[in-house]
């Protein structure tokens, strides 16, 4: 396969970047999108040029490191698929493909396609946990959890923290990510005592990090590789409302 790529190149956070065209030939249909970039990088290095920097690690759709906007779509055209799991057979010979980093004020570009997502960690630090110091736990069977609740909690907990939701949201909002965690913990009995403080703290951190508000556009959920549903945002809003009224 022969492809024309346009890739966002930006040497560092402070320098202006631009879309740079590249031609690449002999791409295998079986290669993953990142492997296609590996091949491009091998060529670039051989020519003495700086290879394209991009984040990745597990390459099997679970670590949440990979993060490319491909033809305007976070994680590319295939639904429920991370960039590392996207394969070149989804494209055709002769295609032109645009590759850009996540774009969001809270995710500044570090280099090329690599962005800083530490704002997500700060949201978790502000309450995205259950305070259970090691060694203090009762027996695991002390509190049964209805299977439906456990399953719903799992669905929300499946978030890989990739940030595609932010990249896709026209408001640059981190709501889906935050809501997934609020929903996960709020659906377990262990998460109840801190439920209100958690949501207030997390929303404060979310806003402070520079994410935008949610206006229920739903692009986040459509881009989410783990198909986290918009209902978690509904839950978040509800928890927040209750907590805010109580804290007032």
């Amino acid at each position: 396969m022969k492809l024309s790529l346009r890739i966002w190149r930006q040497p560092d956070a402070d320098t202006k970047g631009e879309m740079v065209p590249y031609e690449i030939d002999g791409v295998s249909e079986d290669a993953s999108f990142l492997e296609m970039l590996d091949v491009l990088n091998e060529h670039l290095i051989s020519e003495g040029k700086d290879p394209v920097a991009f984040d990745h690690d597990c390459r099997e759709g679970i670590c949440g490191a990979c993060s490319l906007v491909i033809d305007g779509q976070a994680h590319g055209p295939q639904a429920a698929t991370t960039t590392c799991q996207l394969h070149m057979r989804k494209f055709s010979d002769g295609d032109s493909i645009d590759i850009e980093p996540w774009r969001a004020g809270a995710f500044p570009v570090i280099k090329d396609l690599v962005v800083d997502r530490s704002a997500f960690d700060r949201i978790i630090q502000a309450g995205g946990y259950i305070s259970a110091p090691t060694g203090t736990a009762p027996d695991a069977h002390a509190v049964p959890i209805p299977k439906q609740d456990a399953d719903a909690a799992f669905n929300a907990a499946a978030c890989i923290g990739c940030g595609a939701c932010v990249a896709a949201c026209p408001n640059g909002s981190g709501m889906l990510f935050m809501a997934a965690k609020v929903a996960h913990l709020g659906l377990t009995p262990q998460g109840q005592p801190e439920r209100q403080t958690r949501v207030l703290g997390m929303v404060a951190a979310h806003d402070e990090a520079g994410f935008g508000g949610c206006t229920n556009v739903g692009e986040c959920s459509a881009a989410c590789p783990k198909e986290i549903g918009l209902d978690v945002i509904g839950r978040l809003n509800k928890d927040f409302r209750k907590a805010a009224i109580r804290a007032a």
Partner: protein
Amino acid sequence: MSTDFYRDGEPVADAKAPTGPIAERWERRRFSGRLVNPANRRKLRVIVVGTGLAGASAAATLGELGYRVANYCFQDSARRAHSIAAQGGINAAKNYRNDGDSVHRLFYDTVKGGDFRSRESNVHRLAEVSTEIIDQCVAQGVPFAREYGGLLDNRSFGGAQVSRTFYARGQTGQQLLLGAYQALQRQVAAGTVDLHTRHEMLELVIVEGKARGIIVRDLVTGEISTELADAVVLATGGYGNVFFLSTNAKGCNVTASWRAHRKGAYFANPCYTQIHPTCIPQSGDHQSKLTLMSESLRNDGRVWVPKKRGDHRHPAEIPEDERDYYLERRYPAFGNLVPRDIASRAAKIVCDEGHGVGPGGLGVYLDFADAIDRLGQKAVEARYGNLFDMYERITGENPYERPMRIYPAVHYTMGGLWVDYDLSSNIPGLFVTGEANFSDHGANRLGASALMQGLSDGYFVLPNTISDYLADGPFEALGEDHEAVVAARKEVDDRIEFFLHNDGDRTVDSFHRELGKIMWEYCGMERSDEGLRKAIGLIRDLKAEFYKRVKVTGKAEQLNQELEKAGRVADFFELGELMCIDALHRTESCGGHFRAESQTEEGEAKRDDEHFSYVAAWEFGEDEPVLHKEALEFEYVKPTQRSYK
């Protein structure tokens, strides 16, 4: 025994394994260990490198206890440590099923599964602590699978006779890691843990024989800095990536361990590698990693290859009598469910004989046609739907219509830095936890035991044992101008300098791929005297070429992924050589280590307890490594030969 590649040294002096009845040893050790008064903990600084299960759990717990912790990982977030990828589950001797499980049985199974090459005391402690891990994780909100009654569900895993595996769909590692990550973030917010992401440890600082700090590179700015402390914990994961292609994440590396090894820490049993039989085969030279398909597929799939060599027909066109169901043929009793190492090697054998299918002839069929006939497509879909989807996404083939192609791949490394019962390496103040140490699995790890070990080490063992060492602290304050610090920094600077100024013409990956091929060919599923000797030669040549021809673009003061890779691959070269030497010296077959020369008449692994019932702890030597043996004693589980006929 060949001694042409190494020297024999003194046996390991003391593994600190307590004596007495095995069920009381951990209790006793905890009691005999010294404690640190809570007010003093604030004055003690501990570095934890790694935020996987082992690292995050340790950092969070030490933070809760009141120590000042500095925690490092090379990913952009602690949550992305490789533990996130573990699928199957985590073992614990809860006996919630009342099916006869117990701490002793988990202990017994683990020692036996490790082919009698692990330390009994450690394994027993692991089995004891396993139950606390589940309690802890549930309290953190980990959404384990549950039954309709609301209680935790269990499954049997890796051929165990009892159901003791706790799981969270196929994402157990993810959920456990998120639990630990969240506990860690809570400590970050509380100010007890300084978390540094996108930082890579490149050197260990040793002062007066004690581990006192690390040198790290900020992967964004390239800045080299020093972190000094009273103790250093390495929880840096496994080194399966020495094979280039493995199921490990791309960033997994041996650098932290290797740097410690070069500074005197023993590296134990480096050759013990676990190869997982059901991975998606390589599709071409572009391949960057291999993807694991859950082992559970073997419950319903039948493994076969065409009887004719190089048969390129569509599998549906190959009639029954021209198929070789080789596992069912060779192991009539266990059939497709033989343990990982046996299934892996059997696949290699048929492919080596030319029966393999798919690109390069490296693959065997895993066929669900019978299961679909028997159960209906719906039932198969319900059981394995997500795995089938993943397979289709990667290969573009529909496994409902065409048998899956699978092939073994490197998955886990049982070897690692040598540690005593307290998880301390032979360098005082240097502790090692999780996959990075060698301790608990012997020559073969049972499924769902790595997660258990990582969390056991991090939540429960290390925080208890490290206090005995820290009770002597705080140690004398050090300045960054201390000669040991300056020297360590210089080593790092020199290495970076070298790579950036080497006038080469080959990419780092091209070397890594070639090294991986050598390792896989000669130090993979089957090893022989001749092959290993050849491999050592090839590795040495390739390493020389690497230093001559490697090309690293860019600058030091920026995000430079090529530079990161170059440093890691350089360490893989040295590790690869040691792995081959270790494999060469161990002329027996045991667990994941199969020596062609040591097999039974039926071609099964043959252990040699008389000569090899020891841990091989290697000391670094500029010319040749030095072998220290730690003898293994089995008081509670008597060694027997495994058989799956």
